[in-house]
């Protein structure tokens, strides 16, 4: 997995690419999310367009980011959720937990 990020309209956007399955790659995303929180960046979008799939480790990282941000009056939103990840969110009922948008632009507007 590769990870890039940028800021737009006061929102921090993370763009992981590849697969999120645990090990060092997953640690990278986890640390980046918590770095945002530590720096007071409370509005975060994860653009999943480049993520082929993730397993429960990836889902756990998203939940960790979501709950930590919410506990700090922030919000985490998802954009461009791929079919495979959407299917996992549905199976695990996490579709009821995350706000997901069809594009980063739509996610940006929702803040």
């Amino acid at each position, binding site marked *: 997995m590769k990870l890039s990020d940028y800021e737009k309209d006061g929102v921090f956007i993370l763009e992981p690419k590849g697969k999120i*399955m*645990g090990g*060092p790659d997953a640690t990278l995303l986890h640390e980046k999310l918590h770095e945002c929180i530590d720096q007071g960046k409370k509005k975060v979008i994860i653009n999943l367009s480049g993520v082929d799939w993730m397993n*429960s480790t990836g889902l*756990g990282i998203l*939940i960790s980011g979501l709950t930590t941000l919410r506990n700090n009056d922030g919000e985490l939103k998802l954009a461009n959720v791929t079919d495979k990840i959407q299917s*996992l969110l549905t199976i695990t009922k996490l579709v009821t937990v995350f706000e997901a948008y069809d594009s980063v632009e739509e996610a940006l507007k929702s803040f």
Partner: protein
Amino acid sequence: MTGPIIKNNTITIPSLEDYLPDVDNFVEDILEKYGLNKSVIADIAISVTEVVVNAIIHGNKSILEKVVTVTVDKTKTAIEIVIIDQGEGFNPEDVDNPIDDANLLKEVGRGIFIVKSLMDDLKIEPSLTGTRFTLTKNLQ
């Protein structure tokens, strides 16, 4: 053992999650050669990583000297993946129901639930010398 060892259709890794990409690449390469579509390959790959993480952490307790082996096979009707750890046997199903509302925000505990959802069968055989997982995906 200092890294992954591949022999025919089996990969053996030390108990370290850093080797998950090696397992994934190995398994996906074989599944692509079998001509499976991308969605099915992803279902199997996700499931394999779930079980291997369980085997490393809960089975082998992340003891580097203990290994996890993953073997990929194809029968006339199914893909069968066998994953074996060297732990003292554990029941990975002994977790709270991850889709209960009270558990939705828990960061862990979904792995085996996901495997059961994505695969057609999951057999778990714990023993004092290790746990053997057999994952089956039927060929349509």
